[in-house]
């Protein structure tokens, strides 16, 4: 009773301090943050703003005072970016009884224990998945031939709500990106028969707000290529790569001179953006359906254009199904995990801007094949883990000190996988797109 009284008096002012903290070096590990705050009553107010960590903001922690106004509680979340690409997230509920700290530290441990399916599979079968963070916590959006659903956790089971109508054609890619600068993750949905659609997030719902370009895309990636504070897009299809620049309002215009795939790519199947050379500008890796990997480096002056860079990635012929750029070895730069159709996955480690094939050094034998790969700190350790979703099984690899991976568990087959804090308990969960629907895997 004595301590409850003290807390009640502290909370009387309805004001708390939100602190953003991290031990990542600035700018090498983190160079921008985007802070979002919203009333848990989704009809209430919201705030979102991006900050470059430079000048007076060149260090962390940084703070923001939050006043409740008429709100009983609020969501607070932060996205940490490096080289124009998100690398870390954190979120919390603010109940205005105590200050809140959001950590973007190097070590983001998950829960201990064995990964186990929680509840029944729901939503469309064999869907494409994306994780979206914002007011209402982290959500997973599943887009399949049967439609799109927004997935969250209610109690100990999945809850499913209808998403927007899927554009015509079969879904080929779904990407989360903050296109309107409010710090929550909107979605880009690419299908075989329609230009990519932009679904803007508002609270826990998504609204189709328009198309990007005139043609369908086989692959799409997002990053702030010109470091002007808003997210731009790169799409690929056949022998064409196109940069679409964001005008800061979420409207995109093609910049034909900034990027050209002619002569280097003929069958684009995957694209990924990340700062490979550590110069603060996103670089581009392109995977093809039966062609060599290819790379472009962001133009050093920061114009957002891309320059051919043949030496960055081995020109190995692969039938690439999916790619992800994520820090697999804990040295802060992005490494490349490639899901190869009909073959063993590949892991390329970034060594001073060049991607080296270290598959057989770091991954266990046999190297798991996969349709999709997710990389993140899922278990109780600091080293990131990998989840390889494949047609025969989903293989969970546990990250170890030194950047190697060891087999941990085998789950049911899946066509896609993401790591998301679906139940907003501070730990990542795995979400699999299986033949029966979307399944939540928790530790």
């Amino acid at each position, binding site marked *: 009773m004595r301590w409850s009284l003290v807390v009640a008096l502290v909370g*009387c002012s309805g*004001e708390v*301090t939100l602190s953003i903290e991290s031990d990542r070096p600035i700018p090498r590990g983190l160079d921008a943050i985007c802070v979002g705050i919203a009333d848990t009553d989704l009809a209430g107010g919201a705030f979102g703003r991006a*900050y470059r960590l430079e000048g007076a903001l060149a260090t962390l922690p940084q703070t923001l005072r939050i006043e409740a*106004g008429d709100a009983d509680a609020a969501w607070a979340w932060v996205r940490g970016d490096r080289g124009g690409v998100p690398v870390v997230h954190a979120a919390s509920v603010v109940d205005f009884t105590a200050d809140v700290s959001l950590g973007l530290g190097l070590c983001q441990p998950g829960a201990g224990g064995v990964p186990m399916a929680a509840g029944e599979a729901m939503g469309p079968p064999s869907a494409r998945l994306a994780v979206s963070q914002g007011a209402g916590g982290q959500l997973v959006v599943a887009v399949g031939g049967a439609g799109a659903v927004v997935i969250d956790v209610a109690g100990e089971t999945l809850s499913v709500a209808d998403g927007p109508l899927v554009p015509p054609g079969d879904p080929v890619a779904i990407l989360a990106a903050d296109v309107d600068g409010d710090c929550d993750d909107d979605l880009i949905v690419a299908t075989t028969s329609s230009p990519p659609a932009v679904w803007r997030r508002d609270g826990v719902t998504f609204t189709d707000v328009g198309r990007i370009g005139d043609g369908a895309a086989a692959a799409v990636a997002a990053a702030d290529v010109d470091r002007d504070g808003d997210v731009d897009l790169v799409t690929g299809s056949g022998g064409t790569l196109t940069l679409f620049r964001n005008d800061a309002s979420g409207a995109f215009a093609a910049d034909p001179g900034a990027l050209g795939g002619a002569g280097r790519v003929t069958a684009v199947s995957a694209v990924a953006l990340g700062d490979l050379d550590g110069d603060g500008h996103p670089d581009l890796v392109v995977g093809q359906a039966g062609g060599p990997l290819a790379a472009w480096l962001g133009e050093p002056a920061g114009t957002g254009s891309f320059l051919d860079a043949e030496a960055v990635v081995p020109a190995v012929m692969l039938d690439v199904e999916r790619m992800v750029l994520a820090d697999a070895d804990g040295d802060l730069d992005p490494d490349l995990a490639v899901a190869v159709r009909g073959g063993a996955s590949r892991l390329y480690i970034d060594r001073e801007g060049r991607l080296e094939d270290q598959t057989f050094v770091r991954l266990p034998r046999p190297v798991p094949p996969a349709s999709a790969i997710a990389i993140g700190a899922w278990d109780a350790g600091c080293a990131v883990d990998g989840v390889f979703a494949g047609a025969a099984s989903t293989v969970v690899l546990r990250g170890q000190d030194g950047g190697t991976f060891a087999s941990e568990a085998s789950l049911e087959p899946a066509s896609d996988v993401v790591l998301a804090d679906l139940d907003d308990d501070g730990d990542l969960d795995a979400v699999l797109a299986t033949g029966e629907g979307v399944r939540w895997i928790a530790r």
Partner: protein
Amino acid sequence: MDRAVIAALLLALALPAQAQVPTPAEAAAQVQTIEEFLGRGKQLFEEQEYAAAIQTLAPVTRDARATRAQRLRALELIALSHFIRADEGAARATFERILDIDPGYQLRDTSGSPKIRSFFDDLKKQLIPGYDPAAGADLEHAAPTAGTAGRPLEIEVRAIRGSERVFEVVVGTRRRGELAYRTLAAGAVGNGTWRARPTSDPSTQPYVLEYYVEARDAGGGPIARIAGPDAPLEIALTAGAGETRRPWYGRWYVIAGGAAILAAGITGFAIAASAGPDPGTLPPGSVTVTK
């Protein structure tokens, strides 16, 4: 915040919080369900249905109603099941979780399998600084099986092996139904023998005192146990008034001093709370969630 609201808060805090505490019958039913899971899981393990044992026991490890002891029992069976199924990665992860909860945990596995023992000892060596399986000790003890509440009990402990590695011996006691143990350091009487005299709380009703004994090295790490926090031994106590000394918290000067500190603290917090935190370092400094 006005005085009426403060008064209402104080009144609310003064009322016993009844809404969320389960009745004894409900609590007993919840425990029964978890015990059923554990029993079924153990049965499946003994029938060598290891995958089914893992599935049956996994919910116990995530159930907030499960006690620490129940979670540890479930985790050990899950870890052994993984190990037997040659999934060393999963076995390791589960054993690590056990050691996170209790670094001094000793396997209750009755198979005596040297492979399992070796795997677990190797893991402890990796995770627990200074752990050396050959450097433990073996203990035996003498303790009463019954006593009187409020009176001291005498427990004698002897190290029959490794007494030179034992730096101290502690006895942990708690009333059955409580969560936390009180630990009492035993006094060394020489010749590898220690003696402790824990005094139980007086009570007008009989109750069971649970206890365990732990030998520790110079770094405070456990090197041997008799029973354990999750599987203690028991002494049945009859009702007893104990000694007639007033407890320290009942003395008038403690009550008066505490009230004075509380009053000062409340005043200070009220002043601080009315001022609110300073604006933040991120522009615009302050954000109002709703207007």
